[in-house]
């Protein structure tokens, strides 16, 4: 275990190395390492240094604005926030089940979103590490390098993403930050012209997605030992699953498993998430640390996202993705895969599933239905949960009798992965960095581990008023002149 690397005993005696900013991730974060004289790593932390605060500033706003307002916290996966908020609003107005057209339009939007986000992450952000190796020259280790050396892979990646964006545009009006989902339904269907536009390219998109899975599989299976070892941490997993245990990203029950694949809970009603999960605050990050309540903060942290979902589900409903899942499961030899880089493999299996599921859905005439929206009576509590590209996403809203938000709690995918990411970088620090003279390629290994989780740091920092903060005033020589500290309970001391 590497948990002891969270806090060094005598940090004042140690040398500090900082990776800032983290590159090729969404949002702003940094990693700090504290090393002794012999380059032994004594402390490794992933810090989120930006602050967004949506939980606070939507207080007092009307509930029907939530799907459109809250999605603005992200430019990569706004659809996930749009849909989680819309699902919460469905519950707020007492609509538990949408019309078939509304549900299928939302599902199509979500598939398009997952497709484009996964394509962006793999091809634009992570493929340079995997294609060129983590030691490749920095100036070459990026999407421009991929375009130069592997133009066809880059082209397919960019067009896969574009296709996903087109699905989003058609279902929500815009490629980024549309308005498709409303409390109780959607504001438009998919016309036959729009459907035909998407159908024209879908076979090619499925074929490219299939090639992408083969690409990552080849990469990992050519040197499985190093890929399985790198940044591997045994984690509990959490995801939604369908009622029959199949892969599900829009609506389902919560399934949590231990690192060996044993059940912690299964098909739990997402409306009761607050009983299942808790959040811990630490003074050195703006991001909260959630954990499974029954296991406590030390052992209850968990992983979400593609690796968790593909490990957790019993099957995919689409044939090509299911075939790939079986290969993936076989690689684990009866145990869930835990290595950071296998997340890319899982992510691309999901990407393949999205393309297949879009093709199936486009054949469904319900998309052209005109029964778009149901109405209900306003209650006081709404909880919406979806599987965002990066993992399980919880939106929880409470409103007053006038319909204005009084309280909000967002547990964002990246927040769910907070401890898992920290454990991953500590594993890299202990395995790959400890005792070595640090170099850029070595430090990039830390980033490669974080990147595998595809964190969206801007999505993940919203609590206001609870965060312990310390403010220091230093003189020109760096000596501390004064300090003020606010504790998690709001008390301030000097």
């Amino acid at each position, binding site marked *: 275990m590497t948990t002891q690397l969270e806090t060094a005993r005598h940090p004042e005696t140690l040398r500090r190395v900082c990776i800032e900013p983290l590159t090729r991730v969404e949002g702003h974060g940094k990693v700090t390492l504290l090393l002794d004289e012999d380059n032994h790593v004594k402390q490794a932390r992933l810090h989120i240094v930006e602050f967004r605060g949506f939980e606070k500033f939507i207080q007092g706003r*009307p509930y029907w604005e939530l799907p*459109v307002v809250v999605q603005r916290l992200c430019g990569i996966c706004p659809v996930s926030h749009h849909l989680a908020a819309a699902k919460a609003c469905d519950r707020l*107005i007492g609509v538990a089940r949408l019309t078939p057209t509304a549900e299928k339009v939302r599902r199509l939007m979500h598939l398009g979103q997952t497709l484009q986000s996964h394509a962006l992450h793999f091809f634009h952000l992570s493929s340079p590490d995997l294609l060129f190796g983590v030691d490749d020259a920095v100036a070459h280790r990026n999407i421009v390098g991929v375009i130069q050396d592997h133009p066809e892979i880059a082209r397919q990646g960019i067009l896969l993403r574009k296709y996903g964006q087109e699905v989003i545009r058609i279902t*929500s*009006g815009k490629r980024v930050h549309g308005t498709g989902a409303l*409390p109780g339904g959607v504001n438009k269907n998919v016309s036959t012209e729009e459907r035909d536009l998407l159908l024209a390219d879908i076979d090619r998109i499925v074929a490219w997605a299939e090639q992408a899975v083969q690409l990552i599989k080849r990469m990992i299976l050519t040197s499985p030992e190093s890929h399985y070892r790198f940044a591997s941490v045994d984690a509990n997993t959490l995801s939604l699953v369908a009622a029959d245990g199949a892969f599900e990203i829009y609506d389902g029950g919560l399934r949590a498993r231990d690192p060996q694949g044993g059940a912690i809970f299964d098909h739990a009603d997402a409306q009761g998430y607050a009983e299942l999960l808790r959040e811990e605050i630490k003074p050195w990050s703006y991001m909260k640390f959630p954990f499974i309540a029954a296991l406590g903060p030390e052992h209850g942290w968990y992983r979400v996202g593609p690796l968790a979902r593909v490990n957790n589900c019993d099957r995919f409903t689409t044939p090509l993705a299911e075939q790939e899942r079986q290969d993936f499961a076989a690689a684990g030899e009866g145990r869930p895969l835990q290595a950071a880089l296998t997340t890319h493999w899982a992510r691309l299996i999901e990407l393949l599933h999205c393309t297949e599921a879009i093709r199936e859905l486009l054949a469904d005439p319900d998309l052209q239905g005109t029964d778009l929206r149901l109405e209900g009576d306003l209650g006081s509590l709404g909880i919406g949960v979806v599987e965002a590209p990066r993992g399980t996403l919880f939106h929880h809203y409470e409103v007053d009798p006038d319909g204005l938000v009084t309280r909000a709690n967002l547990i964002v995918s990246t927040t769910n992965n907070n401890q898992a990411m920290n454990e991953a970088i500590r594993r890299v620090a202990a395995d790959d960095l400890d005792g070595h003279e640090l170099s850029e390629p070595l430090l990039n290994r830390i980033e490669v581990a974080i990147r595998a989780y595809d964190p969206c740091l801007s999505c993940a920092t919203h609590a206001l008023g609870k965060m312990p903060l310390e403010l220091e005033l230093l003189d020109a020589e760096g000596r501390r002149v004064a300090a003020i500290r606010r504790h998690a309970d709001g008390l301030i001391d000097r």
Partner: protein
Amino acid sequence: MSKTFRLDGREIPFEAGQTIMDAVLAAGGYIPHLCHNPEFAPHGSCRVCLVAIGGRQVSACTAPASEGLEVESDSEAIQATRRAILQMLFVEGNHVCPACEKSGACQLQAVAYYTGMLAPHFTHFFPHRSVDASHPDFIIDFNRCILCELCVRASRDQDGKRVFAISGRGLDSHLAIDSPSGRLGDSSFAAGDKAAHVCPTGAILPKHRGYETPIGARLYDREPISVVGDVRAHEEEVA
């Protein structure tokens, strides 16, 4: 022979008693405006309809048309003044177009686009304003109020209720509601009132609704306000 004046070189006919704004709108032309609504007495307060006559700037909605006037409206100098006025309106309140229900069908936003305003330019005031959702059918979001007084005039002149008034002076000016609590739900305001349907921004909106018109089909998604006309002329379509 009717009398005429010239707007940016174009002959505009008018009848006695018409303002420059009345005549231009009747002739199918356009001068941007926010507080003007032909159903109510001219107000001249928003200053967005500024035009120049002989080098002097006047509000087109209050200036009487007269024979032989040379009116300058579409010049860059006039548009720059209008942009500055709009930029001040945007920073004085909290106008968050990306999340607003009215976006795409908002007269303030459409006029801003018409004048070429693409950014607020000035430092935001970020005033602390609230949302009054106490009424069962309508909300008032004070963040979006530009003090055009159209609701004040509609309630007073057509509804005969005087639900609204402007209170305070200068920067403290704000929309006040005539009810014991100061809240809309305790006033005599009703969904069928004229005052409920004249707001050129997203300040007075029907409750529990929003974003129902898909992007691409909203009032100003396809053509500018100079072609489409005011929100009020399409009230039933967008409500």
